[in-house]
């Protein structure tokens, strides 16, 4: 850290050497950025370095989480009761809906047996709290309080109660970084309902829209249509809600139409997210980006079906809520 040239204090700034060094370090920084942007070249370095800075995250996290714990243990009894009543009502409603879904699921499974298609596998998921760390707002990343000790792997899909949020990027010991679907580097294989048109949803760099390119000019895509994951690529299970189509551009002279869609998940307003534990598919390659996996849309047994809401029908596992989670920020 220290400059070793302590002796030259007082001597004039050396313009030639200084400029040369500036050029050197600037070029170094720029080439590092290019390598980091273009792919996985410096991934290993980033992983190691992220582990080194994890104590910083914990240093911030701990006072906040303990403050939350104290606040929740001191919370007014009446308020807690009211909150419990509210949640009970909500869960009763949700259970009623789930009952209907379970029925549908059974029916669906039987139909699938009749059709001799692959059975949908049960989704397991882990609930994760957002860490109290503000990453760069232009980095399109969030930090969650689950890491390698919770069996998180890079590439696992992350959703919230409304839709797909992103996927796990960097896994640290007790935390992991999630890349949001709004990141311009992120590509998500999707399907537009009800027409069933398949395409890729790219991040646009702003939190409130995704870009759907490569749509045929005559594709049946209209504003208000639902966008769900198609399951192609094997990383995201099919049928998760992603976004709603906002604007469709069909420019004459262009080969393909472009649509913009607003993500359903509350990108930057979540406290609790779910990390799906997907079993690695055959041919799953952890190092390959999503973009390289956009295989041709062949007749894929698991894909062509319209979505059933596979996520809502799951019961959370034992670790769904830490018990000390304050409830204020979830109230409508």
């Amino acid at each position, binding site marked *: 850290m220290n400059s070793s040239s302590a002796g030259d204090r007082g001597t004039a700034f050396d313009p030639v050497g200084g400029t040369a060094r500036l050029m050197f370090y600037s070029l170094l920084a720029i080439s590092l950025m290019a390598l980091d942007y273009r792919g996985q070249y410096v991934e290993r370095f980033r992983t190691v370095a992220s582990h080194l800075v994890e104590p910083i995250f914990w240093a911030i996290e701990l006072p906040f989480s303990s403050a939350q714990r104290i606040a929740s243990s001191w919370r007014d009894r009446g308020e807690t009761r009211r909150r419990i009543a509210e949640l009970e009502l909500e869960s009763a409603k949700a259970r009623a809906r789930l009952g209907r879904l379970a029925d549908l699921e059974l029916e669906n499974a039987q139909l699938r047996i009749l059709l001799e298609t692959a059975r949908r596998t049960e989704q397991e998921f882990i609930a994760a709290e957002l860490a109290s760390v503000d990453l760069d707002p*232009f980095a399109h990343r969030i930090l969650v309080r689950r890491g390698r000790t919770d069996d998180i792997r890079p590439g696992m899909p992350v959703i919230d109660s409304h839709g797909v949020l992103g996927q796990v990027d960097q896994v640290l010991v007790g935390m992991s970084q999630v890349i949001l679907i709004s990141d311009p580097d992120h590509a998500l294989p999707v399907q537009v309902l009800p027409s069933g048109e398949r395409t890729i949803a790219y991040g646009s*760099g702003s939190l409130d829209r995704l870009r759907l390119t490569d749509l045929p000019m005559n594709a049946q895509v209209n504003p208000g249509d639902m966008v769900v994951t198609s399951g192609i690529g094997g990383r995201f299970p099919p049928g998760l809600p992603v976004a709603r189509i906002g604007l469709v551009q069909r420019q004459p002279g262009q080969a393909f139409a472009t649509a913009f869609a607003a993500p359903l998940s509350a990108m930057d307003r979540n406290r609790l997210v779910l990390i799906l534990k997907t079993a690695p598919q055959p041919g799953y390659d952890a190092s390959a980006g999503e973009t390289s996996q956009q295989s041709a849309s062949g007749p894929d047994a698991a894909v062509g079906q319209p979505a059933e809401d596979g996520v809502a029908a799951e019961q959370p596992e034992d670790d769904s809520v830490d018990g000390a989670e304050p409830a204020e920020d979830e109230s409508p």
Partner: protein
Amino acid sequence: MKRTGTLTPVLTTVAAILLTVIPMPDALAAWRPHWVALVMIYWHLETDNLRSLGAAFAIGIALDVTTGTLLGQHALGLVIINFLVGRFRNRLRFFPPWQQALAVGALLINERVVQLWIIGLLERGWPDWSWWLPPVTGMLLWPWLFLLLDALRSHRRFAR
């Protein structure tokens, strides 16, 4: 001028990185100054520490990893700041505080331009006017930060 130990500059830099990612209320988040740059400028101006461009680069990489930006994004900004501080060091040191604050503000705005250029190239969305708030905060905070770090430094010197 005595050379201070490395401990204080390193600790204050770590504290600055902490302040950079600590959560703030939404209303204040846009005003968050570039703490790391401010601390680095102080140590460069007043002591021998954090003087080399290599140190600025290393701090920048640490900041990049922490905030989740591209590797080199903050490093480039800090290297440029450190270069300019080195260039005008002898003049900056003898400015009265308010004038020094203006100069620091100019350095921070320059850094912001560099960042804007990178973000623009990456097509990561175009920031709005609040992009230019942190240099203002940094400029206003500079005299106070200067006094604080001065106190820290002299305390450590006399303690030994």
